[in-house]
């Protein structure tokens, strides 16, 4: 092998590595995806296997408003990400606030849905297999929304105090990545629970 082709100490090397925060968050997302996969598989496996009611067709309503809110929050957080990269902090706070409001609407919608299911339709975790799998899967997703909301709210408070600028854009990028994941999972949960499963 000719030594002319191989790298040589005298030659200076270009050295760029991916951001550790993005890599770490991607790794977390891969792991979380496996958790969701198991719960989705359980949901699909037990679809229509409950020996008694209520069934999904009887009690579930398609949460269109909540879905629109959550999916559009992906767009608003993307705008916030662009804003913090360009150091437009006013715009950043507005888009972040919009993201938080959309997430709150989504969670409020879930709360109302669960309230109706529990008190009107009498569906709890222990009622039947549908209840067990439904509350686990949707609850797991809602838990992730709550965690994301906590992160976003913390960042929002920091931005109100003026502690943030473009130097933190990489950190915020990791949170945004998580939020996009939470939205993407909702597409799967929505499809499985409200479209296929109903």
């Amino acid at each position: 092998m000719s030594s002319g082709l191989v790298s040589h100490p005298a030659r200076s090397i270009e050295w760029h590595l991916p951001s550790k925060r993005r890599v770490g968050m991607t790794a977390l997302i891969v792991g979380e995806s496996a958790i969701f996969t198991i719960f989705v598989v359980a949901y699909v496996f037990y679809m229509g296997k409950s020996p008694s009611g209520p069934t999904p067709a009887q009690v579930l309503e398609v949460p269109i408003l909540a879905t629109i809110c959550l999916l559009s929050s992906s767009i608003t957080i993307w705008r916030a990400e662009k804003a913090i990269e360009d150091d437009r902090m006013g715009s950043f706070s507005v888009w972040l606030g919009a993201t938080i409001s959309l997430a709150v609407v989504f969670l409020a919608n879930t709360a109302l849905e669960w309230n109706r299911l529990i008190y009107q339709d009498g569906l709890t975790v222990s009622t039947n297999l549908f209840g067990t799998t439904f509350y686990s899967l949707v609850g797991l997703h809602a838990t992730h929304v709550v965690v994301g909301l906590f992160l976003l709210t913390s960042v929002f408070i920091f931005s109100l105090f003026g502690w943030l600028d473009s130097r933190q854009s990489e950190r915020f990028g990791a949170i945004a990545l998580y939020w996009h994941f939470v939205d993407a999972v909702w597409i799967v949960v929505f499809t499985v629970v409200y479209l296929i499963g109903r």
Partner: protein
Amino acid sequence: MSDYPLPVTHVIDPSTSASERDTFLERFHGWVVTVDHKRLGILYILYSTFFLLVGGAEALAIRIQLAYPHLNFLSAQVYNRLFTMHGTTMVFLVGMPFLFGFANYVVPLQIGARDMAFPRLNAFSFWMTAFGGFLLYYSFLGGAGLYGVGNAPDVGWFAYAPLTSRAFSPGHATDYWALALIVSGFGTLGTAINIAATIISMRCKGMTLMRMPLFTWLFLIVSMLTLVTITPLTAAQFMLLIDRYLGGHFFDTQAGGSSLIWIHFFWIFGHPEVYVLVLPAFAIANEVIPVFCRKAIFGYSAMVTASVAIMFVSLSVWAHHMFTVGMTSVSNAFFTLSTMLVGVPTGIKIFNWIATLWGGRIRFTTPMLFCIGFLFQFLIAGLTGIMLSVAPWDWQLHNSYFVIAHFHYVLVGAIVFCIFAGIYYWYPKATGRLMSETLGKWHFWLFVIGFHITFDTMHFLGLLGMPRSIYTYQPDRGWNSLNLVVSVGGLIQGIAVLIFAYNFFISYRRGKVAGDDPWDAWTLEWTTSSPPPVYNFEEDPEVHSRRPLWDLKHPDDPDWEYES
């Protein structure tokens, strides 16, 4: 051993100056709040060494009970608890923390980094793992709970439903088991994320992926595999707790649930877990074998390819644990073939190690002896694995001592042997002192002899029909003498491990001073002092080949001229 001048000069020796200055309490506090990857690595190793002794004691109690028929050393209930705790301990509190300990200590040093990517996450992960372990053992005290029944989980380490339901597992023992695994699972997930981010984003200048030491490569693969392996278990444990506490029906067959789905979920975790444990063993062998043969590893790129292949194939073999539950012929054929397929990349690895040994100037130090034992035993473990992958053979031998012998050949014969090799190899780096070679040789020979007496014999017990998880047996089954032989072998291994533990602690004070590079090795961790300073390297290293230290020692014949 090495006379070569090393590039790094040592200005500060933090170990002695710190011990003179601080009181015991201050040093203890320093260890508790540490975020240094080296200290956390050592904590992991100490933690798992402790549980290795605990799990080993449980195994010995099991073997004493089985030494003679109709023995009353343990009651049936205690026996069930002990084999459950033995399995859970050895996999989750010994195997995983040992390997993460090595990763924590060695990976940042090998890639020339200052620390892990997320040092605080690293500390969090360790303490979660540690908390999980102590939570599991607390079940001996708290497992009876308010119900007054049950004490320590007794459902087997795979805890098949519906045995884990409230009706069959009253009390809190099973809850402690599930919670302990969830908690330590979060720790494991955090460490896996950390290792992946460290290896991808923290490499020093010039260390391209194909110049990483194979140890680091394998830990990258292990951490990616862990991400998708430990999480299904966590999900399944949450389902189990929902069943037990909220009245869910996931595994409740009376309400339409399925016990089969637990078996699937468990082995979707359980089989890749074997590779999560064994790939780090390969990683250690990949470092030790070349250094003690005085040759570069044979087939570096083939090793990387084979490891990646193992990662993918290992995700599609889980149901070979389930041939006896009654699957379709298509599933049986699929899982038989996919299991056999794992043999191909694994065979490539064995071939490469042997080719590395071939023509080398082999130094039979203790780490090398353990690696040679590993090669031999892992080959046999692989062959019995191929036998068990054939569904009809498995129908005959499932849940017999043949299976026990097979997986102990992997877990002890391959993994524990490599863990010992790794400890003897990196101990001088971590402490500055060599472990005693004399005691090490005693440890190796007693352990290898005890190992073969125990686990070779177990194969025959399995072929003679002895099932696993029985607390005693009839004297007329023809198993008596073989069982006694197995127990004697276990005792010999126990003595060997005690010699190891003695060596481990005594060498810290009395061992020969190691110097920076006692083995004349080639990777970056040996360029810094032993033990390394908190900051690892005084200057950020820059590498140009897979063996940077070789290049420094041999500027006239550097590796980069030969690597493409």
